[in-house]
């Protein structure tokens, strides 16, 4: 028996009805596949961004003594007043700590850079730039893949981000000009190339002072955080051990916390995953509704075909033969819906990905999800009608006209 041909014949015979039934699955699969595809696109985007700023980076942030605080430590632009770190804990990390780490001469610990935020305004004459001002040690630039378009990054003056330079000086050269941080004048000794930043900070909108100058200008005595570069991403755990050893000697109360980029990445990724799964779960409800549509129409089909079922049973069809015939039909119907839904989803994710600028598109995983869900829904919701057909007594079936 060519079960598949019979099922296809029946679906084709009732084209309009089949299409409307499949539409439920089309919408459901479309929603699930689109959301999971976009979710994995966002994940890929985040990963790519983090890879860009270096998976070898380690961040040291202040913490309460020996507390396993849940410091977030994301981004470097929120140091806050008087050396307060993001977590709101008074910082005890000093310039001395930065130097001790930077001069460790340990092969896995390449460089260390202190970071503070200077809560002052950047201006030129009466023009004020909407810029974040940070104090950083020189290695910071190479850690963040920032390079100079003009001048040097090792000067004693201020380094302007691309947008900051443009907003203050337009197309005139900024190098050698004077800007004011708070009330202190600084020479512009460098301008950065336009760059992409880590999520949460944009170097283009930032002005950078040498760390010592920044501490002096803002009247702070401690750094907000220290960024370390391990020699390679693989050496990050070793570098963490070395850094902890050095810092513990200087901070016996363990009032600091060491966070690796991988940990941050893991947090972001798992957050994205949870959101994606949650949305896909909601989308799955529409798939469920589609499945109920299939069950409904299969029940109608079974009662319409009582006579056919009766004839088949009179001709020796076993219950299993009938069951398989109707299950094939519901699964095929769902698969057609899933196929069309996946195609639409492929187009939609591609377009949305282009518009938003994330690398989204159909993934093998999302297509497999669609196939799996289609077959699952078709089988799950086809079982009841198919069993009803299979259990039909031939005598009853033939009596129906």
């Amino acid at each position, binding site marked *: *028996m060519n079960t598949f041909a019979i099922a296809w014949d029946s679906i084709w015979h009732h084209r309009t009805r089949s299409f409307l039934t499949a539409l439920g699955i089309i919408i459901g699969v479309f929603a699930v596949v689109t959301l999971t595809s976009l979710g994995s696109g966002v994940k890929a985007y985040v990963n790519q961004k983090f890879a860009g700023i270096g998976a070898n980076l380690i961040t040291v942030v202040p913490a309460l003594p020996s507390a396993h605080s849940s410091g977030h430590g994301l981004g470097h632009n929120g140091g806050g007043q008087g050396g307060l770190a993001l977590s709101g804990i008074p910082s005890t990390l000093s310039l001395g700590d930065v130097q001790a780490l930077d001069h460790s001469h340990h092969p896995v610990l390449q460089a260390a850079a202190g970071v503070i935020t200077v809560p002052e305004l950047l201006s030129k004459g009466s023009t004020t730039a909407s810029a974040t001002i940070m104090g950083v040690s020189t290695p910071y630039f190479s850690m963040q893949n920032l390079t100079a378009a003009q001048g040097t990054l090792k000067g004693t003056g201020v380094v302007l981000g691309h947008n900051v330079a443009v907003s203050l000086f337009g197309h005139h050269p900024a190098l050698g000009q004077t800007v004011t941080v708070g009330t202190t004048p600084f020479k512009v000794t460098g301008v950065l190339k336009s760059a992409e930043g880590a999520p949460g900070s944009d170097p283009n909108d930032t002005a950078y002072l040498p760390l010592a100058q920044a501490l002096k200008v803002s009247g702070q005595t401690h750094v907000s955080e220290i960024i370390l570069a391990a020699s390679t991403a693989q050496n990050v755990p070793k570098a963490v051990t070395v850094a902890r050893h050095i810092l513990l000697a200087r901070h016996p109360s363990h009032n600091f916390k060491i966070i690796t980029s991988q940990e941050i990445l893991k947090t972001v990724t798992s957050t994205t995953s949870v959101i994606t799964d949650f949305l896909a779960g909601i989308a799955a409800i529409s798939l469920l509704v589609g499945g109920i549509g299939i069950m409904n129409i299969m029940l109608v089909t079974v009662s319409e075909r009582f006579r056919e079922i009766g004839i088949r*049973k009179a*001709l020796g069809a076993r219950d299993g033969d009938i069951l398989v015939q109707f299950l094939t039909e519901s699964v095929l119907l769902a698969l057609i819906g899933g196929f069309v839904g996946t195609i639409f989803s492929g187009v939609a994710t591609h377009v949305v990905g282009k518009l938003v600028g994330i690398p989204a598109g159909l993934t093998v995983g999302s297509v497999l999800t669609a196939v799996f869900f289609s077959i699952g829904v078709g089988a799950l919701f086809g079982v009841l009608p198919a069993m009803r057909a299979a259990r039909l007594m031939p005598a009853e079936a033939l009596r129906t006209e």
Partner: protein
Amino acid sequence: MAMEKSQAAPLIEIQDLTRRYGEGEATVHALRGISLTIGRGEMVALMGPSGSGKSTLMNILGLFDRPTSGQYRLNGQDMTRLTSRQQAQFRGRRIAFVFQGIHLLPRLTALANVELPMAYARMPASVRKKAALEALERLGVAHLKDRYPTEMSGGQAQRVAIARAIAPGPDLLLADEPTGALDRKSGELVLQAFQELHDATGVTILLVTHDPFVAQHAERIIALEDGQVIDDRPVADRLVAHATLRSSGGPS
């Protein structure tokens, strides 16, 4: 003649068969203790008015229904204890059916319809095609093998249905009002087909009908009324369907 055959090798043995539907006050006694024997190779008509129990009896004989009590043996085998899967293996293959309505599957060609019972019996494609073509040939409708049921006359369709019934070589052919939906001329042709089939192959045929004219084509008439056998006797002057109609090419 018929009685001698049945005593030698009874195909169907029924003992005290009853069938009740429903419960309590609403109970319907469709069969009230029927006993009969039908021999291999007999052509029997089962007669009775509607409500006499003949359809119920046919459903039980065809393994469509189970008796409330009593014995049913086919070829000496107890049919009342079969599982539904075993029943399915008998249906279509050992016990074949021709129904009042045409009952061909409309979306299959004549050939595919005839092959269907053998397909369900998991017979190889080549074997079933050969048997199907032979059966169509025997019923004189081989030229219709690629047509769909909607492209045939009622008489032609019914002969395809008979071909479908006999193709697997059944022991018993149950025909429920096989001429009921046909005009007189087509009905005559179908009856003729049954008679020729019976004479040529010796297949046991049970014709269920309320029409005395149709019943007169059998060798033996069993009459039912109110769930009981009220008469069982050989046909004295058996009618033979007109052979002349056959040569005219059948109904259009």
